Structures are given as C-alpha cells and as structure tokens.
C-alpha cells in the first residue's frame, strides 16, 4: 500500500477523564472509502472529529498520540486549524443548512477563504452541486432558502457545501441516518463518484450500508479498534468473533 492519506497513531482520547478512544492506530488510504463502524458509543464520531480538529471546540477533553495528514502532525503547535478544515471537510448526521439560500450555503466556505471572483464562485457552485448529485434538482432554485429543500436534498447540499472547498478528505458522520432509501441511494451513488478525487471516511448508519460502500473497513467497540480489513473481506469473513457477531446481527 502507498503512503496512507491519514495515519492515526496510538491515539487515546478522554472526555472529562472518561476514555472514548483507547490507543487506536489506523491507516486511511487515499482515494478510497474507509468505513468506521460498530455499535453506538464506540468512539466513531470522536475519531472523525479528531481528523479535522472539530473536537477542539469541546471543553474538558484530553488526547494522546498523533494524527498525521500526508505525514504531517495536524496537532503540531502552529497548525492553521481553519486551513486544515478546508482540507478535511465534514458532513454531519443531521443535514443543517446554514441560514440563507442554496447558493449562500455552497459558497459560505469559499467566501470565507477569500474567493471573490463572480465567475469563479459560479464555477464552484455548479461543480459542487453537480458532484453532490444535486445540480439538476436545484439549478432553478439557487436563490431559494436552503431549508425549503427536502431532507435528502439538504443532506446533498451539505455535501456540496463541503466539496465547494475542494477538500482532500471528506468525513461523513452517518450522513444518511435521517434519509429515505431513495435519497440514501443518491448519496451513496455520489460517494462512489467522489472517491476518484477525494479520500472518504464514513461512519455508516447501518452494517448494510457499511458493506455496500466500504473499500476498507474498521470495526470499533467501546473505543477500541477491533479489526481492520479490506471491505470485502471484512463483511464476508471477519476474523474477530465480536466483529462477526456484530456484522451478522447477533448484537448491536
């Protein structure tokens, strides 16, 4: 395997002294979909939020270990956190459009990053919405309030909003948990398109989804990384008993 895009190195993480991750070491390959799955409370969301330092916003936490992006420690002193978050985009479980129009939502990040040219912004708008498989549905509604879209459209808008910054990595935290099967299918479809250009880390909302999208899979249980495999192998022949029990539905 080539140099991993992201390397998580012996990371432990605590909320008010309570451990959420225990000595996790995990490589995330570039241009592939890596699935982080396991029962609730396993530290999946925490792990995602460490990769773009969103957990910095939470008080009373402690971390040890290193997180490397292209070989560089993103927790090194002097790291430009805003710039890091432009390289590592994130989509949340609940679609939360910012107040404002569809256009304003997509262009929020680029504008903050200082992009001013009209044609450039227009290009970003079309490209991001197309990549998120939303362009055809909203091209005539760009100046409508974003929260007038359906739930599934809102979530793809949130994906487009992240893609507008042309991140290198896209983190998705149960992006389809509130969506119907058709919208879910559309989101997954756009993920397959996106992995050509981006490195994707996703916490799926079900084992079935994990199996559908995973190039690589990592099974987490109570803050520990139990098993890490190529996706196909993980879901057909897991080695660890607990992973097998979870995948086959014996617990969860």
């Amino acid at each position, binding site marked *: 395997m080539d140099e991993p895009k992201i390397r998580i190195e012996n990371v432990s993480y605590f909320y008010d002294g309570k451990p959420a991750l225990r000595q996790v070491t995990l490589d995330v390959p570039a241009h592939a979909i890596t699935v982080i799955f396991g029962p609730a409370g396993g530290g999946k969301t925490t792990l995602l939020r460490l990769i773009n330092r*969103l957990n910095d916003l939470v*008080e009373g936490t402690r971390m040890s270990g290193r997180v490397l992006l292209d070989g560089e420690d993103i927790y090194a002193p002097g790291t430009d956190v805003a710039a890091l978050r432009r390289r590592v985009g*994130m989509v949340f479980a609940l679609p*939360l459009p*910012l107040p404002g129009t569809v256009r304003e939502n997509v262009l929020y*990040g680029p504008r*903050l990053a200082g992009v001013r040219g009209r044609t450039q912004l227009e290009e970003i708008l079309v490209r991001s919405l197309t990549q998120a498989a939303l362009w055809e549905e909203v091209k005539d509604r760009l100046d409508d309030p974003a929260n007038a879209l359906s739930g599934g459209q809102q979530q793809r808008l949130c994906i487009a909003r*992240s893609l507008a*910054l042309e991140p290198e990595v896209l983190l998705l935290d149960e992006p389809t948990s509130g969506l119907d099967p058709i919208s879910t299918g559309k989101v997954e479809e756009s993920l397959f398109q996106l992995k050509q250009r981006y490195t994707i880390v996703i916490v799926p909302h079900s084992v079935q989804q994990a199996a559908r999208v995973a190039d690589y899979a990592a099974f987490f249980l109570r803050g520990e990384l139990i098993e890490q495999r190529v996706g196909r192998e993980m879901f057909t022949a897991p080695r660890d008993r607990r992973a097998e029990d979870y995948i086959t539905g014996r617990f969860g």
Partner: protein
Amino acid sequence: MNRYLVQRAGFALLALAALVVVVPILLVIGTIVVRGMRAINWEFLTAMPRDGMKAGGILPAIVGTLLLSVGTALVAIPVGVGGAIYLSEYARDTWLTRAIRLAIINLAGIPSVVYGLFGLGLFVLFLHFGTSIVAGSLTLAIMTLPIIISTAEEALRSVPVEFRTVSASLGGTRWQGIRNIVLPQALPGIITGVILGLLRAAGETAPILFTVAAFYLPRLPRSPLDQTMALPYHLYVISTQVPGMPAQVQYGTALVLLALVLSMNVVATVIRSTFRRRRQW
C-alpha cells in the same frame, strides 16, 4: 364541592388576577391621554418654556431626552453587545466569568439613584465632565448595561451550537462564524434587549438628577458638555417643585414622555417580528 365548580372558581380567580394587572395600566394611560391631549399643540412640542415653565413648550426637554437616549445607545450598545458576545462565545466557564455573571445580575437590581450618585462621583467630579450630556449618557449607559448584556447573551445562546460547528467545519474562524451566522440569528433578541434597556434609560429620573438635568434651561444644548433639560426630570420638577403649575402642562408632559417610550416599544416589536419571520430554525 363539585370539582367543576372548583375549576370554574379557579379560572375566575385567575381572570381576576389578570384584570387587576390590566385595569390600572389602562386607567393610567387613559387618564394621561385624555387630560394630556388638551395640552398638546404645535407650540407645546416646538417652543421653549416661558413664564417659569407655566406656559410655552417643552422642546428642550424633548430634545434633551432624545440626545441622552442617543448618547446612552452609543455607549451601551457596543459595550453591552460586545460583552455579551464575549461571555457567550469566548469565555470559558471559570470562577471569573461566573463572578462577572453574578455581578451583572446584581447590577440589574441596584436602585437607580445609586447609579446617579456613582455617575456624579466618577464622571461629573472625578473625570471633570461636569454636569453634562456626556456624564448623563455614561451614567444611563452603565445602568442599562446589565439589561443589554443579559438579554443579548440569552439571545446568542439560543442560536443552536451546531451552526457554529458547521461554520468551523467549513474553515471559518470563531469570529467568522459569529459575524456571519450567530449574530444575524440572534439579532431580534439583541434588539429587544437594547430597546428595553434604552426605554428604561429614557424614563429614569434619578440617574440624570445629579449628572445632567437642568432645572430650567430654555435653550437647546450647544455641546455634549452642556447641561440639558430632560422629560422625566422636567415632569418631576413641574409636578412637585413649582407652585401653581397648570395641571394641563403636567399631563401634557407626561403624555409626551409616555408616547416617546411607547413608540420606541412599538418599533422594537415591529423589528423583532420582522426578523423573526426571516429566522430559519
């Protein structure tokens, strides 16, 4: 006793309680409007007082109150909203910020005459602003700050934390998230707080008593360091300090003050509902 009767008696008592609140207010407003209307004419609103304030108009008092409100707003809005942003968005939960919050709550309960004496000591005497619009505005601003800070902080906190997270995840700094998302969403609440505070300032007598108010000054103020007449103090003066004052002038002055304050209130309500319709959560 029949439980439906008990319920009915309960409702009747509650309705009575509501009536006890509303009736005196309506009586006060009604009396002032009915008896004050006769005094209101163009001269009353635009002329200087004459004959020891028994005749002429109350223009200097109106202008003085407007100037004091503007001066108060100029100081209290930036400081108050800035303080609220700091407390809600930046300050961590430490003993210091808890002490600040406690102080703000307690400041809101201090009698206004104490603010007046404080203003006299600090602004008029120690800082040599003299009895002036500057000193009066600063005193009123300090009195207004607790109201503005606590309502603005409440408004900021009611904006869902997820908006801040989303903004950060799109490469926004903390300030960019506040500036672009949080503040616009909190604006209706902040405006409400600001206007509530300014209303209180516009109607207060005690804080301006020693710091700016002139007993009788039949001209418009010439500079921020000038004294001025002001409606609440003028009302106090003509009601208690000048024998033989026509009741009509007293009611007229009260009506002008009431109209000023109530119209600010209406403006606040309109602004609030306009913004609220645009809010998206």
